[in-house]
Protein backbone atom coordinates (compact mmCIF):
# COMPACT_ATOMS: atom_id res chain seq x y z
CA UNK A 1 0.00 0.00 0.00
CA UNK A 2 1.69 3.22 -1.10
CA UNK A 3 1.92 6.24 1.12
CA UNK A 4 1.99 9.82 -0.11
CA UNK A 5 3.94 12.26 2.02
CA UNK A 6 3.71 16.00 1.60
CA UNK A 7 5.60 19.09 2.70
CA UNK A 8 2.48 21.22 2.63
CA UNK A 9 2.98 24.65 1.09
CA UNK A 10 6.23 26.51 1.60
CA UNK A 11 7.91 29.63 0.24
CA UNK A 12 11.00 29.25 -1.92
CA UNK A 13 13.54 32.02 -1.55
CA UNK A 14 14.16 34.62 -4.21
CA UNK A 15 17.59 36.23 -4.52
CA UNK A 16 19.30 38.78 -6.82
CA UNK A 17 20.08 37.68 -10.35
CA UNK A 18 23.61 36.49 -9.62
CA UNK A 19 22.23 33.85 -7.29
CA UNK A 20 20.04 31.12 -8.74
CA UNK A 21 17.65 29.41 -6.36
CA UNK A 22 16.51 25.83 -6.96
CA UNK A 23 14.82 23.12 -4.94
CA UNK A 24 16.19 19.60 -4.72
CA UNK A 25 14.03 16.66 -3.68
CA UNK A 26 16.17 13.95 -2.12
CA UNK A 27 14.96 10.38 -1.98
CA UNK A 28 17.12 8.18 0.20
CA UNK A 29 16.67 4.44 0.17
CA UNK A 30 17.62 2.90 3.49
CA UNK A 31 17.14 -0.64 2.25
CA UNK A 32 19.11 -2.83 -0.11
CA UNK A 33 16.30 -3.39 -2.59
CA UNK A 34 15.54 -0.68 -5.18
CA UNK A 35 12.52 1.45 -4.36
CA UNK A 36 10.12 3.14 -6.71
CA UNK A 37 8.72 6.56 -5.93
CA UNK A 38 6.67 9.24 -7.55
CA UNK A 39 7.50 12.90 -7.03
CA UNK A 40 4.99 15.65 -7.65
CA UNK A 41 5.41 19.35 -7.12
CA UNK A 42 2.78 22.05 -7.34
CA UNK A 43 2.95 25.82 -7.34
CA UNK A 44 0.37 28.09 -5.74
CA UNK A 45 -1.00 30.52 -8.29
CA UNK A 46 -4.02 32.67 -7.50
CA UNK A 47 -5.21 30.13 -4.97
CA UNK A 48 -4.93 27.13 -7.25
CA UNK A 49 -2.26 24.49 -6.92
CA UNK A 50 -0.81 23.99 -10.39
CA UNK A 51 1.38 20.97 -11.06
CA UNK A 52 4.91 21.81 -12.13
CA UNK A 53 6.46 18.37 -11.90
CA UNK A 54 5.31 14.76 -11.97
CA UNK A 55 8.05 12.20 -12.17
CA UNK A 56 8.40 8.51 -11.43
CA UNK A 57 11.82 7.57 -10.15
CA UNK A 58 13.72 4.48 -9.13
CA UNK A 59 15.93 4.81 -6.08
CA UNK A 60 18.79 2.31 -5.99
CA UNK A 61 19.23 0.07 -2.97
CA UNK A 62 21.16 1.87 -0.22
CA UNK A 63 21.30 4.83 -2.56
CA UNK A 64 19.83 8.21 -3.29
CA UNK A 65 18.03 9.92 -6.13
CA UNK A 66 17.77 13.66 -6.51
CA UNK A 67 15.03 15.45 -8.43
CA UNK A 68 15.90 19.06 -9.13
CA UNK A 69 13.27 21.76 -9.57
CA UNK A 70 14.74 24.57 -11.63
CA UNK A 71 14.80 28.22 -10.78
CA UNK A 72 12.30 29.00 -13.48
CA UNK A 73 9.81 26.73 -11.75
CA UNK A 74 10.28 27.53 -8.10
CA UNK A 75 12.30 30.65 -7.29
CA UNK A 76 10.15 33.07 -5.33
CA UNK A 77 7.17 30.75 -5.58
CA UNK A 78 5.03 29.02 -2.98
CA UNK A 79 5.25 25.32 -3.74
CA UNK A 80 4.29 21.96 -2.36
CA UNK A 81 6.18 18.68 -2.80
CA UNK A 82 4.40 15.35 -2.58
CA UNK A 83 6.23 12.03 -2.67
CA UNK A 84 4.51 8.69 -3.06
CA UNK A 85 6.44 5.74 -1.71
CA UNK A 86 5.87 2.04 -1.34
CA UNK A 87 5.53 0.95 2.25
CA UNK A 88 6.68 -2.64 1.56
CA UNK A 89 5.57 -4.11 4.83
CA UNK A 90 6.26 -1.11 7.03
CA UNK A 91 3.46 0.04 9.26
CA UNK A 92 0.98 2.38 7.62
CA UNK A 93 2.48 5.69 6.66
CA UNK A 94 6.10 4.57 6.74
CA UNK A 95 8.58 3.51 4.10
CA UNK A 96 12.15 2.32 3.73
CA UNK A 97 12.74 5.32 1.48
CA UNK A 98 12.77 8.78 3.01
CA UNK A 99 12.21 12.16 1.31
CA UNK A 100 13.75 15.53 2.01
CA UNK A 101 13.91 18.88 0.26
CA UNK A 102 16.75 21.37 0.08
CA UNK A 103 16.37 24.91 -1.20
CA UNK A 104 19.79 25.95 -2.44
CA UNK A 105 21.32 28.96 -4.12
CA UNK A 106 24.05 28.91 -6.73
CA UNK A 107 26.26 31.98 -6.94
CA UNK A 108 27.17 32.29 -10.59
CA UNK A 109 30.30 34.26 -9.78
CA UNK A 110 32.19 31.30 -8.37
CA UNK A 111 29.70 28.46 -8.76
CA UNK A 112 29.44 28.06 -5.01
CA UNK A 113 26.23 26.75 -3.52
CA UNK A 114 24.57 27.58 -0.23
CA UNK A 115 21.82 25.80 1.62
CA UNK A 116 18.96 28.20 2.24
CA UNK A 117 16.34 25.89 3.73
CA UNK A 118 16.17 22.24 4.68
CA UNK A 119 12.94 20.29 4.89
CA UNK A 120 13.70 16.99 6.55
CA UNK A 121 11.88 13.68 6.35
CA UNK A 122 10.29 14.54 9.70
CA UNK A 123 8.75 17.65 8.20
CA UNK A 124 6.77 15.60 5.71
CA UNK A 125 3.34 14.40 6.81
CA UNK A 126 1.00 11.82 5.25
CA UNK A 127 -1.14 13.52 2.67
CA UNK A 128 -4.77 13.65 3.78
CA UNK A 129 -6.88 11.59 1.42
CA UNK A 130 -3.55 10.46 -0.05
CA UNK A 131 -3.67 9.14 -3.61
CA UNK A 132 -1.21 7.13 -5.65
Amino acid at each position, binding site marked *: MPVTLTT*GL*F*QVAQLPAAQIVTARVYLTNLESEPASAHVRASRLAF*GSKREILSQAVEVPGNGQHIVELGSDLVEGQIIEVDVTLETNGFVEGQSGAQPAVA*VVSLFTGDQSTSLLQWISA*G*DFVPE*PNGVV
Partner: protein
Amino acid sequence: MSSIKSWSISDSVLQRPGSGPDRGRGPVFHDVRTTGYFAAPPDEGIPTNLNIYLSNFADAPRQVRVAVNRLVNGVGESIFSRSLTIPGGEGRHLNVEDVAGESLEVRVWAADDVLPSADVSYYFIADGGIVVQVYRSPADFVRV
Protein backbone atom coordinates in the same frame (compact mmCIF):
# COMPACT_ATOMS: atom_id res chain seq x y z
CA MET B 1 9.37 47.29 19.76
CA SER B 2 8.21 46.79 16.18
CA SER B 3 4.81 48.09 15.19
CA ILE B 4 2.16 45.46 14.89
CA LYS B 5 -0.75 45.94 12.57
CA SER B 6 -3.81 44.40 14.12
CA TRP B 7 -5.85 42.45 11.65
CA SER B 8 -8.62 41.37 14.01
CA ILE B 9 -11.94 41.44 12.23
CA SER B 10 -14.49 41.45 15.00
CA ASP B 11 -15.13 39.87 18.36
CA SER B 12 -17.79 37.58 16.89
CA VAL B 13 -15.13 35.81 14.85
CA LEU B 14 -13.20 35.05 18.01
CA GLN B 15 -16.12 33.45 19.87
CA ARG B 16 -16.02 29.74 20.46
CA PRO B 17 -18.50 27.66 18.48
CA GLY B 18 -21.84 27.41 20.22
CA SER B 19 -21.62 30.75 21.98
CA GLY B 20 -22.98 34.17 21.16
CA PRO B 21 -25.97 35.17 19.11
CA ASP B 22 -25.12 32.71 16.32
CA ARG B 23 -25.15 29.71 18.65
CA GLY B 24 -25.79 26.56 16.69
CA ARG B 25 -25.78 28.30 13.33
CA GLY B 26 -22.19 29.45 12.93
CA PRO B 27 -19.37 27.59 11.19
CA VAL B 28 -18.00 24.48 12.88
CA PHE B 29 -14.33 24.68 13.78
CA HIS B 30 -12.31 21.67 14.69
CA ASP B 31 -9.59 20.94 17.19
CA VAL B 32 -6.94 23.60 17.20
CA ARG B 33 -3.45 22.95 15.95
CA THR B 34 -0.68 25.22 17.14
CA THR B 35 2.99 25.87 16.49
CA GLY B 36 3.49 26.84 20.09
CA TYR B 37 5.53 30.02 20.55
CA PHE B 38 8.59 30.54 18.42
CA ALA B 39 10.92 33.47 17.94
CA ALA B 40 10.92 35.63 14.85
CA PRO B 41 14.33 37.07 13.91
CA PRO B 42 15.30 40.31 15.65
CA ASP B 43 14.55 43.65 14.10
CA GLU B 44 17.41 44.53 11.73
CA GLY B 45 15.57 47.09 9.72
CA ILE B 46 14.45 44.52 7.13
CA PRO B 47 10.74 44.05 6.52
CA THR B 48 9.92 40.80 8.30
CA ASN B 49 6.59 39.10 7.79
CA LEU B 50 4.84 36.00 9.06
CA ASN B 51 3.35 33.88 6.30
CA ILE B 52 0.75 31.22 6.92
CA TYR B 53 -0.07 28.65 4.27
CA LEU B 54 -3.14 26.49 4.18
CA SER B 55 -3.43 23.56 1.77
CA ASN B 56 -6.82 21.91 1.32
CA PHE B 57 -6.46 18.28 0.24
CA ALA B 58 -10.19 17.62 0.22
CA ASP B 59 -12.35 17.66 -2.89
CA ALA B 60 -14.78 19.96 -1.10
CA PRO B 61 -14.47 23.44 0.44
CA ARG B 62 -13.19 23.62 3.97
CA GLN B 63 -13.70 26.36 6.53
CA VAL B 64 -10.59 27.43 8.34
CA ARG B 65 -9.90 29.80 11.18
CA VAL B 66 -6.45 31.21 11.82
CA ALA B 67 -5.22 33.20 14.79
CA VAL B 68 -1.79 34.58 15.57
CA ASN B 69 -0.67 35.56 19.05
CA ARG B 70 2.43 37.29 20.25
CA LEU B 71 3.90 36.94 23.73
CA VAL B 72 3.96 40.14 25.73
CA ASN B 73 5.27 39.94 29.30
CA GLY B 74 4.36 36.27 29.41
CA VAL B 75 0.82 36.79 28.16
CA GLY B 76 -0.47 35.92 24.71
CA GLU B 77 -1.88 38.85 22.78
CA SER B 78 -3.89 38.42 19.61
CA ILE B 79 -2.46 40.20 16.58
CA PHE B 80 -4.29 38.46 13.76
CA SER B 81 -7.52 36.56 13.27
CA ARG B 82 -9.13 35.38 10.07
CA SER B 83 -11.85 32.96 9.03
CA LEU B 84 -11.93 31.78 5.45
CA THR B 85 -13.24 29.08 3.18
CA ILE B 86 -10.77 27.25 0.96
CA PRO B 87 -12.17 25.54 -2.14
CA GLY B 88 -11.34 21.88 -2.57
CA GLY B 89 -7.81 21.24 -3.81
CA GLU B 90 -6.72 24.84 -3.37
CA GLY B 91 -4.38 26.70 -1.06
CA ARG B 92 -4.26 30.05 0.62
CA HIS B 93 -1.51 32.35 1.80
CA LEU B 94 -2.05 34.74 4.70
CA ASN B 95 0.40 37.46 5.62
CA VAL B 96 1.07 39.30 8.88
CA GLU B 97 3.45 42.21 8.55
CA ASP B 98 6.12 43.58 10.86
CA VAL B 99 6.78 40.66 13.21
CA ALA B 100 10.51 41.12 13.74
CA GLY B 101 11.60 40.41 17.27
CA GLU B 102 8.30 38.91 18.35
CA SER B 103 7.53 35.55 19.95
CA LEU B 104 4.73 34.22 17.81
CA GLU B 105 2.17 31.45 17.96
CA VAL B 106 0.06 30.35 15.00
CA ARG B 107 -3.21 28.57 15.71
CA VAL B 108 -5.31 26.90 13.05
CA TRP B 109 -8.77 25.44 13.37
CA ALA B 110 -9.55 23.23 10.40
CA ALA B 111 -10.50 19.74 9.35
CA ASP B 112 -7.77 17.11 9.13
CA ASP B 113 -7.54 17.42 5.37
CA VAL B 114 -6.29 20.99 5.57
CA LEU B 115 -2.58 21.19 6.26
CA PRO B 116 -1.11 24.38 7.74
CA SER B 117 2.47 25.56 7.46
CA ALA B 118 4.18 28.84 8.19
CA ASP B 119 7.35 30.84 7.88
CA VAL B 120 8.89 34.14 8.86
CA SER B 121 10.68 35.76 5.97
CA TYR B 122 12.74 38.81 5.15
CA TYR B 123 11.61 40.93 2.22
CA PHE B 124 14.18 43.01 0.39
CA ILE B 125 12.14 45.67 -1.31
CA ALA B 126 14.97 47.00 -3.48
CA ASP B 127 15.46 43.79 -5.44
CA GLY B 128 12.39 41.74 -4.58
CA GLY B 129 14.44 39.28 -2.58
CA ILE B 130 12.76 36.84 -0.20
CA VAL B 131 14.71 34.91 2.39
CA VAL B 132 13.00 32.43 4.69
CA GLN B 133 14.33 32.76 8.22
CA VAL B 134 12.05 30.50 10.24
CA TYR B 135 10.01 27.61 8.88
CA ARG B 136 7.24 25.61 10.48
CA SER B 137 6.13 22.53 8.58
CA PRO B 138 2.75 20.81 8.93
CA ALA B 139 4.49 18.39 11.28
CA ASP B 140 5.37 21.30 13.57
CA PHE B 141 1.71 22.03 14.24
CA VAL B 142 0.40 19.97 17.17
CA ARG B 143 -3.13 19.47 18.40
CA VAL B 144 -4.13 20.87 21.76
